[in-house]
């Protein structure tokens, strides 16, 4: 254990840029939800109406939590947001522990550290301490956000504590996974699987008898019922599990060699398949896992949104205040709702596209681009590889969303025609998504260094315009920069061809100009 303290300080320094974002994200979720809920359900009657609507809606319960939470406004906040805050905290804990244990061993950096005067268990101990501290910080911030927005103090403390213990559980889980698997991705994958199972188990439990929720770390937290009974004893479950998991991780780490896992990683191919022959094959190979994940996630999101589309009409009738947030008002409620969900899906697709096309920059700064460009690969082909994934991948994601939403909505209203209809709707949002990707390419060509910042600022700006443009009453000029603001809100309105063609043409020009810049500039800095 020698050197744990020094290592912890070193880790904190390495995380000083990334960690605040996790904390901020969790805090904002609670802050926004608490403010919004208290505005929407500002009277006991409003809350009562909500209880009635939600009580009969399996989809909402499956997405959120147990209905007992709806007994008070604070509980309503927990009902809506706890699962998502839990996911953020779990991922934070997973990356903190994974990055400083398994990933360090995999890259060989840990070898350097161990050769200094540092005990065998010190990196694991320091990483767990780091995740513990971060979880504690999230707990305090969640408490502050909840109590600060006027929710009862007692329940807020429990809310914060329940959030923090999710972090502890997943830190322990990651510590075990890091001993078992030899590569970081497999460790993350297994923890991610547990996280997904935790969400699904509590969904099934909350919809059914509740028994299954007790197998889920997210369920444990929700079943403390903050603001709706304030039950502390379920927190014993995550606390005991984290102690057991950490003990197991320490025991396992004694039984394995440095750099090895208990499960050795499978050997790969000795020869490339015939698909891996050029920059296109390489780009798709590198991104296929990610792409599949995003497409499935967007498809599932479509299913989730589509499943509740039918009940929206009913819901709106019960809560007329919500209609204000929908572009078409109370009329055409379902179509307005569908248009809104497509707007969100398009933002997610744009974020995916930006991340995918920024691989170009990653390849360049890592030095891998140099090896590819030293072969017969032209700069156009090199760019084209990753760009094709970004363009096609974002399109696939949007289509998957339309397919999922169409299938789920079609099933609830017994109308198979919704599938082709909503898949068709997806195409209307594509030009705007592509324009954002094209702007990143423009930057890659002429000003590569700020391209990542620029890409994310563009996505963030579009998100603010789409999500908050109306509620913040942004003036027209401030919204005009977002291509989504010029995209017809299909299916609420008919698709107008002119703006779509203009946006597509702009995207094509930006792509061509970006390539022209890339041809002229030095590569590899």
């Amino acid at each position, binding site marked *: 254990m020698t050197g744990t303290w020094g290592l912890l300080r070193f880790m904190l320094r390495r995380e000083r840029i990334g960690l605040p974002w996790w904390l901020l994200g969790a805090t904002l979720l609670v802050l926004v939800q608490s403010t919004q809920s208290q505005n929407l359900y500002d009277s006991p009657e409003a809350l009562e109406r909500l209880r009635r609507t939600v009580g009969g809606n399996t989809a909402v319960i499956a997405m959120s939590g147990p209905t007992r939470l709806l007994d008070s406004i604070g509980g309503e906040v927990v009902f809506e947001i706890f699962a998502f805050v839990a996911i953020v905290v779990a991922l934070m804990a997973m990356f903190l522990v994974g990055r400083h244990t398994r990933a360090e061993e*995999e*890259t*060989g950096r840990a070898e350097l550290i161990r050769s200094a005067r540092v005990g065998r268990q010190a990196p694991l101990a320091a990483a767990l301490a780091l995740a513990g501290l971060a979880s504690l910080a999230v707990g305090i911030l969640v408490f502050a956000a909840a109590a600060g927005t006027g929710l009862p103090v007692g329940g807020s403390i429990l809310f914060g504590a329940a959030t923090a213990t999710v972090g502890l559980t997943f830190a322990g889980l990651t510590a075990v996974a890091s001993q078992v698997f*030899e*590569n970081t*991705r497999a460790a993350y994958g297994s923890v991610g699987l547990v996280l997904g199972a935790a969400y699904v188990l509590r969904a099934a439990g909350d919809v059914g008898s509740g028994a299954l929720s007790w197998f889920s770390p997210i369920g444990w937290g929700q079943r403390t019922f903050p603001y709706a009974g304030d039950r502390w004893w379920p927190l014993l479950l995550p606390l005991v599990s984290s102690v057991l998991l950490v003990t197991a991780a320490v025991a396992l780490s004694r039984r394995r060699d440095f750099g090895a896992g208990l499960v050795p*990683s499978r*050997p*790969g*191919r*000795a*020869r*490339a398949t015939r698909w*891996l*022959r*050029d*920059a296109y*094959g*390489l780009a798709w*190979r*590198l991104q296929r896992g990610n792409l599949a994940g995003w497409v499935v996630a967007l498809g599932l999101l479509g299913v989730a949104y589509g499943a509740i589309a039918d009940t929206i009409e009913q819901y709106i009738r019960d809560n007329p205040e919500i209609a204000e947030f929908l572009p078409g008002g109370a009329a055409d409620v379902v179509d307005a709702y569908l248009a809104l969900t497509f707007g969100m899906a398009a933002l997610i697709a744009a974020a995916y596209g930006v991340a995918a096309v920024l691989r170009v920059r990653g390849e360049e700064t*890592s*030095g*891998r681009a*140099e*090896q*590819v*460009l*030293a*072969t*017969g*690969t*032209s700069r156009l082909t090199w760019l084209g590889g990753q760009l094709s994934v970004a363009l096609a991948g974002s399109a696939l994601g949007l289509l998957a969303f339309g397919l999922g939403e169409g299938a789920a909505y079609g099933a609830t209203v017994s109308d198979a025609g919704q599938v082709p209809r909503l898949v068709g709707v997806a195409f209307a949002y594509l030009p705007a998504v592509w324009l954002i990707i094209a702007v990143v390419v423009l930057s890659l060509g002429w000003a590569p260094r700020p391209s990542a910042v620029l890409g994310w600022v563009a996505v963030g700006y579009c998100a603010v315009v789409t999500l908050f443009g109306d509620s913040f009453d942004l003036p027209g000029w401030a919204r005009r920069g977002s291509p989504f603001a010029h995209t017809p809100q299909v299916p609420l309105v008919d698709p107008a061809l002119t703006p779509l063609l203009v946006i597509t043409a702009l995207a094509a020009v930006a792509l061509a100009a970006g390539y022209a810049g890339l041809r*002229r*500039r*030095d*590569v*590899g*800095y």
Partner: protein
Amino acid sequence: MTTSTEAISISALSKSFGSAKALDGLDLTVAAGEVHGFLGPNGSGKTTTIRVLLGLLRPDAGQVRMLGGDPWRDAVALHRRLAYVPGDVTLWPGITGGEVIDLLGRMRGGLDRRRRDELLERFDLDPRKKARTYSKGNRQKVALVAGLASDAELLLLDEPTSGLDPLMESVFQQCIQEAKLQGRTVLLSSHILAEVEALCDRVSIVRLGRTVESGTLAELRHLTRTSISVETAEPLRGLETLPGVHDMVVEDRHARFDVDTAQLDAVLRLLVPLGVRSLTSTPPTLEELFLRHYGAGPAAGEQVAS
């Protein structure tokens, strides 16, 4: 094959990154079929020169020709005829070494399967491992196998052995000898002098982005001193007055001294009449050559360059 006898010819090449001058009038000529050593301390501009040759960087000034073409304009066509091995190899973490070798080979326009497998064996590299699990030396081997398995007529190697152990270093040297026998041209950037001495026909030494010395090893040695230890029948006299003799230690009939290689002949003429009993002469190593340029401060370099 190029018709010209010069595989690479660079004159007065300059390249700056912002205010930092990486190359400052560099000259380099590599004849077709030769193994050319490209020597210089860290930061002297070797990698930058090779990146210019690869068409990754656009020169600020100077002429650059490679295989009869312009490295910037004709990049793609030229790249099919060369293979490049970087000094610090980064690979795609989720792809195996074998896949990378095949991919880079195919991107170059095909590779010789038999040669590839033979090289894997000689370098003792497991092609089934994901790149993220390779050590630095193994990543280097992946790039070497990919480069050497091609039938490229020009090999651009940028400190290609920096991560290899001595055993693999000797395998590498054999491979370069073979490449030379096959008539390929090799530009070998290195700071391992023994490697350059063992392999290279000619060397160029760069410093601060400028060529300070260029020629065959013999020519370069000529510019330096040979150490002599001699024992004669007659007492030694008159040696210290000869031009080009330095650091003389005489004990009656025994002397140790250094002599400018150019003056060797005159010294021997003086020794022979005295009756030479024993004589050992140690030719200058490249190391000494190198140290003369880099160890003695800035002045030494400028002196020779002028």
